[in-house]
């Protein structure tokens, strides 16, 4: 793992007229890693991505992508040349055919990967003669992905890339992401598909109401997040379990359910010391971690 960051923000904030979309975001995305950006609808993911690419001006704070300042117009131009971005709505010229679009876009990039273009064109079964405006949502997404992947970028930023794809398309997308990552491309993608994130991501960032609540490697999430269900002979001593790492405690009659992001061992030790009659430990999947994180506190 390299500590070098391809995306770095300091207190990045975006306020719309009456709402704070992104609040003092300190984001650090590692080089050569696959980082997933999770959050509910309206959590501020797309706003963050648009600020990173210079499409929206931050209200305050600063950030850099591949070392270039995002708010400096000249540097922003440089960074956009090396970052491939697939937007949520996949804007393309509707009057062009698929083939014309590929030829048009490739002409802007001197080190266009013809091999990647050909492979994906075949894998995605794109119809060369069809006009872009007549493509299905899934086909449109595939075309947008092909255009991004063939550019030989240093960094790929994808806003919900799997939206509108069928299961085969999703599998192809994930394989392409893995292949790109193996070639040294850093990847930052937002998604609602927990299952796919859980398979390929190295790092997970969870945004909720504009705040970064989780920024952890999936290895750590898997290793340390645990749910510990305890049964006591009488009313459970809930307060005894408010220790570092315990994110949430649910109590019901003589039972306690403890959700811990670390220190599960300490919880178990304490439970035994307090004469728990039953101690059960279960790992917590990313879906549960996400749901627990975005739950009203």
């Amino acid at each position, binding site marked *: 793992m390299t500590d070098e960051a391809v995306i770095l923000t300091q207190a990045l904030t975006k306020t719309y007229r009456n709402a704070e979309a992104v609040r003092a975001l300190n984001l650090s995305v590692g080089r050569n890693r696959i980082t997933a950006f999770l959050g509910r609808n309206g959590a501020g993911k797309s706003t963050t991505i648009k600020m990173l690419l210079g499409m929206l001006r931050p209200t305050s704070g600063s950030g850099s992508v591949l070392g270039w300042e995002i708010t400096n117009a000249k540097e922003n131009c440089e960074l956009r040349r090396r970052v491939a971005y697939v937007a949520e709505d996949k804007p393309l010229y509707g009057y062009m055919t698929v083939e014309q679009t590929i030829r048009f876009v490739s002409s802007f990039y001197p080190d266009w990967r013809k091999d990647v273009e050909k492979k994906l064109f075949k894998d995605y079964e794109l119809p060369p003669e069809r006009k872009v405006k007549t493509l299905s949502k899934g086909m449109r997404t595939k075309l947008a992905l092909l255009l991004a992947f063939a550019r030989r970028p240093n960094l790929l930023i994808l806003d919900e890339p799997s939206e509108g794809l069928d299961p085969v398309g999703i599998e192809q997308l994930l394989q392409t992401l893995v292949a790109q990552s*193996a*070639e040294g491309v850093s990847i930052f993608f937002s998604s609602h598909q927990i299952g796919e994130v859980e*398979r*390929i*991501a*190295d790092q997970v960032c969870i945004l909720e109401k504009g705040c970064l609540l989780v920024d952890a490697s999936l290895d750590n999430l*898997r290793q340390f997040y645990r749910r510990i269900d305890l049964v006591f002979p009488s009313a459970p001593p809930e307060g005894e379990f408010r220790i570092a790492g315990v994110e949430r405690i649910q109590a019901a009659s003589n039972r306690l359910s403890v959700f811990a992001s670390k220190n599960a061992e300490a919880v178990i030790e304490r439970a035994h010391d307090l004469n728990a009659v039953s101690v*059960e430990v279960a*790992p917590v999947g990313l879906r549960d971690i996400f749901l627990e994180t975005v739950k009203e506190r």
Partner: protein
Amino acid sequence: MFFKLTPTTGQPLYLQLMQQIRHAVETGALRDGEQLPGIRTLAEELVVSPNTVAKAYSELEHEGLLEMRHGSGAFVCVKRRTRSLADQVQIARRRLRDLIERLREDGLLDEEIRRAFEAELLYPAEIVRKR
């Protein structure tokens, strides 16, 4: 060689891969000198981050079970220590199987046994010794 990683369990994917490679060596499914797929090939096959495969390979190299040759990939490297470890694991498995059999006879369900194991494994080593 077939590996199967489970993204939803509480164990990092690189550790799962390490265990499966180790297991394949212990059972003889992978032999001394045999070549493993390259990092990129295996990552694409399993559809996991290349970092997962790279980490598993480098940890196993550290353990002495794999030898990384520049440009040509990872090779299995079975030393005497690995063999005696393999025997030890075989014995431990037999003991585990007996224990699980007894617990089942006592009427415990597999799911209950699994959870009990999870809980005990999280017990710090020292406390277990005290008991």
